[in-house]
């Protein structure tokens, strides 16, 4: 049996391609990866009006067949039939923005010239009318020599017509409409002029109206009000991530505790039971409990992207980012990294330039993620006196703020250095189309969130589960002989490693207990709180944090505590971040580099802090 015909959706960025893809396939879609590149492959199934199935491929948006990013290269290779792991499409749906014909038709002409059966979806037809543009789809079809269907993807208009036309195109034996217009093979400037002629011919009338995108922009891009608006948006986003995300995160953690308790009831005490409860369930639970916060973060990112606001935020922040060799596009991924570096690194895909993107990935872990908060809270609460330095300004809060600022300042310095050394290269600058503002559709948001959740859960289920089990094994073996006074933690492989490497950390004020707590912190930073509890032989059922604080006060000097905090600002943690970096950079080279440079920074920062604090007599 022949496979279902393959149809590719192609178009300029901002043509509403993904919305059309969602409207055509609904929830029946699959996100994968092209072999060897970090480009997502979005594929879905749809049925033609006559019942035949079609496989639909949503290709990355691009302006031409001359690629300037890995995404754009995939698009070119698929439509020319040279992409590894993909067959040549049987037909192409070219998605064009109805109110931007001049520009989008140029790429359309290039695609038609490839000779594959083509149908043009004249998308966002309603927005063009709102802008006072009256178009004649039939005239456009005549000029282009291919069928043209007006569509409004977000409202599912024109979808049935599009499917009818597609059914004709993928019928075996149907003659592809080929034209041998010499202009189609011409250079970009000639194509552009031809595109403008066609756009003119297809435009019935054009009444200039005051576009409300421009009115909104005069606020959103305003040097004062625009920046204020951006801060309000960010404030709401962080409040939502930290507060709305907390309750479901606790519920998930509770659910995993309950599950572990259940296993403990039905299974006799054994190594296997410990593997299941302390290894697998606890480890995966520690990661999955971040899912609500990650989803809330992505909800905001998707809304900001789909509404068109994201580009405005990038516009406002470009100057600051440019000062360290990055572009405005890096702003949002770095911002997301304050919640968690994992979604932050995942969202660097919107950065076109490879070197910009790599630099952003490498500095993302320096943004203080939410997993560091429990550690900061514990240590600051225990060691920093709760005094007011100014009315309404407490010393504890000031130290906390200082740690956040250290992270950002560190990131900027690192970016500056990286851009002059390992990620050197001509900056791609900042040149981007600013799309019209649009209300995002609920369906597109839901599908976007679902695919993010799927990617995250898959990773939690594989890489992260595996590494947490390895860490569990390191803490559980070899087992303490019965009746020994030595604690299991000290006797284990991890304990022995800590004993071995402890001398290396002694100069920066870390004792053996701290070194030991750093090992499980690799799975998730906040685990180090529980680990310290275990090391100090306290029942670490986490409500005992005040007891923990008292123990810390007794055992640590202030200099050690400050050094420990500085270590956490820069430390190369956690496994999830390293795993996602490997995935996004396609190999172990960059995660290895990231871990090394962070380690050196953390060591130096903790060391300098310790030495200075000791000199000051703390």
């Amino acid at each position, binding site marked *: 049996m022949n496979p279902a015909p393959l149809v590719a959706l192609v178009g300029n960025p901002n043509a509403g391609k993904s919305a059309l893809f969602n409207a055509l396939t609904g929830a029946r879609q699959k996100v994968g990866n092209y072999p060897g590149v970090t480009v997502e492959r979005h594929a879905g199934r749809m049925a033609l009006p006559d019942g035949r199935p079609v496989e639909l491929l949503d290709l990355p948006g691009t*302006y*031409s067949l*001359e690629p*300037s990013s890995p995404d754009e290269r995939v698009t070119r290779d698929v439509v020319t039939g040279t992409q590894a792991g993909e067959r040549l499409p049987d037909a192409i749906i070219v998605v064009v923005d109805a*109110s*931007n*014909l*001049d*520009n989008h038709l*140029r790429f359309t002409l290039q695609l038609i010239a490839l000779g594959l059966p083509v149908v043009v979806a004249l998308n966002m037809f309603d927005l063009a009318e709102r802008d006072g543009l009256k178009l004649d789809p039939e005239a456009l079809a005549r000029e282009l020599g291919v069928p043209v269907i007006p569509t409004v993807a977000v409202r599912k208009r024109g979808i049935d017509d599009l499917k009818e036309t597609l059914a004709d195109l993928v019928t075996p034996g149907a003659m592809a409409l080929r034209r041998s217009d010499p202009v189609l093979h011409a250079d*970009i*400037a000639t194509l*552009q*002029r031809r595109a403008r002629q066609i756009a003119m011919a297809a435009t019935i009338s054009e009444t200039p109206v005051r576009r409300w*995108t*421009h009115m909104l*922009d*005069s606020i959103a*891009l*305003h*040097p004062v009000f625009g920046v204020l608006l951006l801060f309000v948006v960010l404030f709401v986003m962080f409040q939502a991530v930290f507060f709305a995300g907390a309750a479901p995160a606790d519920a998930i953690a509770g659910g995993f505790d309950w599950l572990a308790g259940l296993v403990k009831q039905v299974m006799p005490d054994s190594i296997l039971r410990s593997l299941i409860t302390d290894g697998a369930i606890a480890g995966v639970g520690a990661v999955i409990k971040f899912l609500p916060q990650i989803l809330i973060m992505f909800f905001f990112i998707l809304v900001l992207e789909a509404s068109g606001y994201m*580009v405005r935020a*990038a*516009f*406002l922040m*470009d*100057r600051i980012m*440019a000062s360290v060799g990055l572009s*405005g596009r890096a702003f949002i991924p770095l911002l997301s990294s304050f919640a968690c570096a994992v979604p932050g690194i995942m969202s660097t895909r919107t950065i076109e330039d490879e070197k910009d993107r790599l630099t952003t990935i490498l500095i993302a872990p320096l943004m203080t993620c939410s997993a560091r908060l429990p550690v900061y809270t514990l240590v600051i609460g225990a060691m920093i006196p709760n005094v007011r330095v100014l009315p309404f300004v407490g010393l504890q809060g000031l130290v906390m703020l200082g740690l956040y600022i250290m992270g950002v300042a560190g990131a900027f310095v690192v970016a500056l250095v990286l851009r002059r050394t390992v990620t050197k290269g*001509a900056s*791609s*600058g*900042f*040149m*981007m*189309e*600013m799309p019209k503002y649009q209300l995002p559709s609920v369906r597109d948001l839901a599908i976007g969130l679902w695919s993010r959740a799927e990617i995250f859960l898959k990773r939690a289920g594989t890489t992260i589960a595996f590494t947490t089990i390895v860490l569990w094994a390191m803490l559980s073996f070899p087992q303490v002989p019965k009746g020994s006074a030595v604690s299991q933690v000290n006797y284990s492989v991890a304990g022995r490693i800590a004993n071995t490497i402890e001398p290396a950390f002694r100069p920066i004020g870390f004792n053996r207990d701290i070194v030991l707590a750093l090992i499980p912190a690799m799975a998730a930073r906040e685990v180090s709180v529980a680990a310290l509890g275990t090391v100090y032989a306290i029942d670490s059922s986490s409500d005992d944090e005040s007891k923990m604080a008292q123990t810390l006060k007794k055992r640590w000097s202030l200099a050690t505590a400050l050094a420990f905090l500085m270590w956490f600002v820069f430390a190369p943690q956690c496994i999830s971040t390293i795993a996602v970096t490997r995935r996004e950079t396609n190999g172990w080279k960059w995660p290895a580099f990231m871990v090394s440079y962070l380690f050196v920074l953390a060591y130096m920062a903790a060391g300098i802090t310790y030495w200075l604090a000791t000199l000051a007599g703390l």
Partner: protein
Amino acid sequence: MATIPLSLEQLPQRQRATVAGIAWDRLTAPEGRRLRELGFDEGVGIEVLHRARIGGGPIACRIGRMTVALRRRVAGAIHVDPLTS
């Protein structure tokens, strides 16, 4: 070409103009290609919509029917003819 060369960077906000020419040699190859792809070409209508004033940030301009953000250095390589109306 305009008799008095005026770059997009110097064009007053909301002053309609057409692209008179582009100094391709002052741009990198990818920059030049992206400019062409975004529709920058001689004779196309252009207008500066917004400037991120603080410290010489990027500018947003209308080119054809599109709004495009670019940095000042690139805008400086685009020569424009203001339309007198």
